[in-house]
């Protein structure tokens, strides 16, 4: 357990170390660690020292980390000893030393994690502007590789205040931090508790039985979670006839939760208010279903929060009224600054909206890619995606990314990735591949290479290997719909 004073001391000591070793304002520093106090200290320290923290999902492969290293021009990477050998080469090539707790265990540049404890007088920490970047956090798009969302201090502070206000966070709160800090919502678990003077509880294993145990053991008062967390926890409690009266708030987001699970929440969380929320990495924590509306609006994305502007637009037509479908567009302090070093992708999503010109002129807004419909009470409902992006268990998954990884894994002529829902409501990724030469296809080698390229939450749950050529809709173009239909229900090979 780490108290506020000790946390502050550790953060200040690490920030001072970074400055003494040449961190310049706005330099990027990577963090590739398991959720832990070290991870929190590192991101806060980078921030205090005026740098930009780049938290990478600890499930990412070394190849993905190396790409982020190069892409952001990382100065250092905080990581674990176990990752050193895989990252030694890129660390060397890119001049990005690894900061680990046990140095000297591998090749490549590394430095020991600075010891905490009393230091010489602290340096003056730089004064920042709220427009300065606090972080670059990666998210998948429908095309290409993951993009680095540029998040300002203002974006985080704005969202943190918004959340703490609607949750009524106070110093008696203890939040179980299940969400990874590689996504904005995860970082906000930490900031809301720092703001309120509450506590952050780090979970053990993510199994529902362990989540329930943590909640009881630490008297957790609230938590935020993605659909698999809620499906798993509710099913677990209902199966055992148990409840968690400790919780006073639960927050859902990240995709569709089966109604049977939502409907059970008041039973298994008898003292909790349920907050259904929505947001994107590019414009986070923007809409909310107030708990008093829960029963009437189960499954809704909510209404815009205070100081958040959201419009529903139909290109070429205009703003949508109730009952009309259109794309959800965000505007205001909730909108992040764009994608790092990717002007094309930034211009595609962060642009002015002709349908809003009468009201806000050419102000830049963010196009979410989510097609929604507003009801008579102003509540938004998800209809679908404008592009092919999948939302699997709260994570964005780009079918194109998986297909590219499959083709790169070798000897694959065509690949089609798609999402599939199982009986309990959990989504999984299916991948159909057509080997370049069916007779010579090495399944085990393919698996191994694909596993190296993709993190676990993107890894296909079902693989269908086509012994015959896939149907084509045009020369060289696979008929995706036909492939998906025929692969669906095929026994796992």
């Amino acid at each position, binding site marked *: 357990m780490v108290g506020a004073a000790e946390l502050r001391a550790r953060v200040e000591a690490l920030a001072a170390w970074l400055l003494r070793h040449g961190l310049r304002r706005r330099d990027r520093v990577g963090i590739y660690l398991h959720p832990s106090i070290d991870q929190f200290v590192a991101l806060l320290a980078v921030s205090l020292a005026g740098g930009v923290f780049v938290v990478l999902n600890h499930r990412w492969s070394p190849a993905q980390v190396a790409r982020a290293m190069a892409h952001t021009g990382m100065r250092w990477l905080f990581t674990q000893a176990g990752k050193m050998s895989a990252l030694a080469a890129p660390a060397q090539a890119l001049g990005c030393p690894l900061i680990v707790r046990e140095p000297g265990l591998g090749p490549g540049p590394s430095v020991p994690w600075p010891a905490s404890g009393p230091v010489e007088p602290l340096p003056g920490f730089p004064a920042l502007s709220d427009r300065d970047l606090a972080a670059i956090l990666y998210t998948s798009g429908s095309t290409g590789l993951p993009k680095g969302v540029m998040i300002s201090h203002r974006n985080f502070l704005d969202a943190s205040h918004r959340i703490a206000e609607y949750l009524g966070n106070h110093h008696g709160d203890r939040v179980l931090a299940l969400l990874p800090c590689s996504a904005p919502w995860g970082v906000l678990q930490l900031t809301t508790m720092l703001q309120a003077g509450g506590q952050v509880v780090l979970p053990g*294993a993510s199994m*529902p*039985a362990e989540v329930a145990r943590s909640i009881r053991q630490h008297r957790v008062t609230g938590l935020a979670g993605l659909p698999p967390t809620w499906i*798993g926890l509710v099913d677990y409690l209902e199966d055992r006839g148990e409840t968690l009266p400790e919780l006073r708030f639960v927050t859902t987001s990240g995709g569709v939760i089966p109604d049977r699970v939502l409907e059970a929440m008041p039973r298994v969380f008898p003292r909790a208010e349920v907050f259904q929320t929505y947001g994107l990495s590019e414009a986070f924590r923007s809409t909310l279903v107030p708990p008093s509306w829960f029963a009437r609006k189960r499954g809704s994305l909510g209404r815009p929060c205070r100081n958040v502007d959201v419009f529903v637009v139909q290109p070429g037509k205009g703003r949508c009224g109730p009952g009309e479908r259109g794309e959800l567009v965000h505007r205001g302090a909730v909108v992040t600054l764009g994608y790092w070093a990717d002007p094309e992708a930034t211009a595609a999503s962060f642009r002015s909206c002709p349908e809003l010109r009468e009201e806000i002129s050419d102000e830049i807004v963010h196009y979410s890619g989510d097609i929604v419909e507003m009801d008579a009470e102003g509540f938004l409902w998800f209809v679908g995606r404008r592009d092919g992006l999948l939302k699997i268990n709260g994570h964005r998954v780009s079918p194109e990314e998986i297909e590219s990884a499959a083709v790169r894994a070798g000897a694959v002529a065509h690949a089609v990735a798609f999402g599939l829902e199982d009986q309990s409501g959990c989504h*999984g990724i299916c991948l159909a591949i057509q080997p370049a030469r069916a007779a010579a296809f090495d399944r085990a080698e393919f698996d*191994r290479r694909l596993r190296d390229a993709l993190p676990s939450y993107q890894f296909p749950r079902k693989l269908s290997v086509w012994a015959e050529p896939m149907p084509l809709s045009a020369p060289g173009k696979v008929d995706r719909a036909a492939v998906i239909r025929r692969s669906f229900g095929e026994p796992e090979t």
Partner: protein
Amino acid sequence: MTCDTTQLRGVLIRKFGLEAGTLAGDAPLFSSGLLDSFNLVDLIEHLEQTANIRITPGEISLENLDTLDRMAAFVTRKSAAAV
């Protein structure tokens, strides 16, 4: 039907690309972070199909599944009860 640690070790190596050296019978799988919640879903599905058992949500716990030894004992118990 008995299910033993050796069989399960083979499953983990094939399915998740783990190395035999890290898989002692009492090595923590989930509590150590070696396997995550996505792996868990796959594993449950596999165990149910191959051992012809149904694992209820309430049974998914570290006590039953966190090591190869525990997993083997759990599956064996469930198979016997199902007969």
